């Protein structure tokens, strides 16, 4: 058996964990699931509200907005690409036909819109990674490089199995918990699918530094989600 206990400063159970991570989320309060972008209504007319997809799209809008905001960093830009995504979804609704999960279809459209926005800005990502503390990561390991049993979270046991939807919600919450610049670079790689050399070039850092940032982001993400998934 593994010996493990979470530190007292960390959330002790899934409910507490969700409340903990939700406190970091930007723009949660204005992301009501029944709210469809007012500018989308202004652009396409009120008939958009009667479109068969409107309720479904409104439910997905907050997720799309948070994802875009994480990547683009500016709310106006994020609002623009989400609006373009929703317009494209309405126009192409007949092609969707439920062949894939709606969120996967929409994130695919949004990916292209973000890449377009990103490239049209011709701006490099402002990085301030020097001040990022490694305390969280250092606490994961002992001096000899082994996992620290005091902080290692074990959750591969039947009684902690969580529904897929909850798993995804926890991953989403934890994504929002990643630090700004790391999150942007992480999503350039993980979401936009950019090659390492492309991301490094955009961020004006070396590929070696980028690997360090991605490694840290993955460690932090794992640490966050396994606490949310629950301990044995």
């Amino acid at each position, binding site marked *: 058996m593994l010996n493990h206990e979470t530190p007292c400063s960390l959330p002790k159970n899934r409910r507490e964990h969700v409340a903990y991570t939700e406190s970091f989320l930007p723009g949660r309060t204005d992301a009501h699931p029944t709210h469809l972008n007012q500018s989308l209504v202004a652009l396409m007319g009120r008939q958009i509200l009667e479109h068969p997809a409107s309720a479904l799209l409104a439910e997905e809008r907050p997720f799309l907005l948070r994802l875009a905001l994480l990547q683009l960093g500016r709310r106006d830009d994020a609002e623009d690409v989400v609006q373009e995504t929703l317009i494209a979804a309405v126009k192409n609704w007949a092609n969707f036909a439920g062949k894939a999960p709606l969120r996967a279809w*929409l994130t695919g459209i949004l*990916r292209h819109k973000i890449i377009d926005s990103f490239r049209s800005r011709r701006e490099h990502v402002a990085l301030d990674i020097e001040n990022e503390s490694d305390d969280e990561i250092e606490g994961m390991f002992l001096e000899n490089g082994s996992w620290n049993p005091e902080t290692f979270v074990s959750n591969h046991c039947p009684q902690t199995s969580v529904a*897929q939807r909850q798993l*995804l919600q926890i991953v989403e919450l934890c994504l929002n918990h990643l630090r700004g610049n790391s999150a942007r670079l992480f999503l350039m*790689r*993980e979401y936009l699918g950019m090659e390492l050399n492309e991301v490094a070039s955009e961020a004006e850092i070396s590929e070696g530094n980028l*690997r360090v940032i*991605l490694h840290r982001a*993955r460690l932090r*993400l794992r640490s966050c989600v396994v606490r949310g998934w629950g301990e044995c």
Partner: protein
Amino acid sequence: MENLPEDRPITCRDTTWLVSAARDGELDEAGHAALQKHIADCPFCREASQQFTDLFRSLDLLLGNDRPK
């Protein structure tokens, strides 16, 4: 995989580098073999490796990724 230690066995911390490299499609045969050897002997890394696999699968679902990394 660059920077595999030549003078000592890899540590748990090293394996997380290898997992990250594998996610980016950068893990060569030697790195893969070193990772599997360590995981076979280390219950912590066996579990952590499964946690990373579950995490990456969830991440791909969440982000609508359907392409190999």
